[in-house]
């Protein structure tokens, strides 16, 4: 299991984690977990690289990445990459519960990418899609598409899975046919 970040901001509905390296983070829509108790599972919905100091702004140098690393190495010390994660479930006594945790993970706990088995388990039902749809401030449709791709990758040969999830989406979107068709077209 690879460690992908350390929590620097935490709330019931989600957390922000700092990546160990600039520009590296779990990809958008990726399933992640914490090593806190309870273990909290989430979906990465935003990745930000910016200045560490709010008073300083990055400036364009007109150099390639190699040149910058060779000749302006300090700038990489002054940047940070963080990712935001939307909480979709937590574990309690070996069971996964698809609701918000009683207590959010503490700051400084580590974040890991979920294993294939964990992704399969977390995405076996459509609860995570419902969480996404009901969350304000997340790019809902794109997060649905990306998380479903990750879920599908984890199961490899399950052709019926997408059909099942597509039916769920049809239910969630009710009569918004345009939106449903846009999501489905972009998914396959």
């Amino acid at each position, binding site marked *: 299991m690879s460690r992908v970040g350390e929590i620097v901001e935490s709330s019931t509905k989600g957390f922000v984690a700092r990546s160990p390296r600039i520009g590296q983070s779990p990809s958008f829509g990726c399933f992640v977990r914490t090593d806190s108790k309870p273990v909290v599972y989430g979906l990465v919905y935003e990745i930000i690289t910016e200045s560490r100091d709010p008073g300083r702004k990055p400036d364009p140098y007109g150099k390639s990445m190699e040149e910058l690393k060779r000749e*302006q190495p300090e700038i990489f*010390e002054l940047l940070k990459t963080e990712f935001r994660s939307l909480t979709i479930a937590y574990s309690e006594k070996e069971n996964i519960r698809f609701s918000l945790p009683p207590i959010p993970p503490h700051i400084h706990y580590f974040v890991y990418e979920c294993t294939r088995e964990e992704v399969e388990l977390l995405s076996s039902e459509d609860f995570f899609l419902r969480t996404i749809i009901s969350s304000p401030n997340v790019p809902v449709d794109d997060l649905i598409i990306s998380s479903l791709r990750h879920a599908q990758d984890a199961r490899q040969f399950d052709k019926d899975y997408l059909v099942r999830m597509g039916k769920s989406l049809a239910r969630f979107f009710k009569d918004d046919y345009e939106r449903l068709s846009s999501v489905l077209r972009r998914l396959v």
Partner: protein
Amino acid sequence: MIEEKKGLEEHSLEKISLSLSELKLRSKKWEELSQKVKLSKTSWLLAGVLGPLDNTYFLPIRPQTCTVIASDGSQIFPNRHEALPCYLINIGSAVLHYGEEGKAKLNSYPKFFYKDEDRLVIWDGRRIPADSSVISERRALMEFQELLRLADENKNLGNTVAICDGTLIFWRLEGTPSDFKNEIIQPFISVMDRLKDLRIPIAGYISFPGSTDVINTLRVGLCPEEVSYCNRCPYTDLPELPCSPIEGVTDRMLFSRVLSKPGERSSVFQSSSKILDLYGDHKIYFFYLNIGEEIARVEIPKWVANDKELLDLTHTVIFDQARKGSGYPVALSEAHEQAVVKSRDRDFFFDLIREGLVRSDFRVTVSRKGLSKRIPRI
């Protein structure tokens, strides 16, 4: 007012042109001027002349791989209106490696001073509370010691240059008693000894310098006396002294005419500050450098000035640093960023101390002035 300013500007341009022609004239017979400077007794600092004054040197090629170490400091001075007479010195540092393995290390080390030996200073045999000038000198020493620590850490890298913000000359110590002078100078000399052993050149970078050492030397050249002795100047009855026509010009103004291309540096001159008598082998020399945006003054110890390899390395690395930092060495600005203590930090610092004291059941007394600043009334 603007008309007046215009007039002054024109007058000053004339003076600069005059000093430039004087520089060229004296360069031809620099040995003569050098000798006169050595014998003269003036009230100003004179630049020791070691060769033609108007020589310029092209920018050497910077080695592909090099390392720059820099430090800078800031402090929270003791405040007698606060609960405890303590202070804090924060030393920021930057180590920048350039080349294939480019990387950077930025750090800061705050140090808290509260014990008697920190708060008091031995001044002419007596122990007196350390004031802001004492703390500033201690801070400057700590900056040099931090440079040495970084130099030791990076001693195997080669092509390493240490730079600090401002002068290498502790000229403020000149009027202080010898016990305090020694407290600062002795450890500083040890730092210089070690850097010399490591062959890591150290340079003090002065942006927009106001110094007039070279101009003063040219004024000695203008003095009709065989040996200038300002205290016995025989020309004080004249409407204008023979050395006055270039008075008011700074070295920076002069060298902005001499150093035409970015990257060019001037000849190396020797500083004549009195305090340098205590520097032993590390007498300070300096040169001016056209960094494009301005003319900077770079101070170096004698062993750097006399070693062409180290001098060239310092020249090229400092220019490159200034280029990268849009006119100010990037390693210095990063070290400064690490060091800076904002007023918010200062308030937080004293809040912490008060809290700590209260928690330990100490009676906390702050002055009424201190209190009134904290709780302003309408």
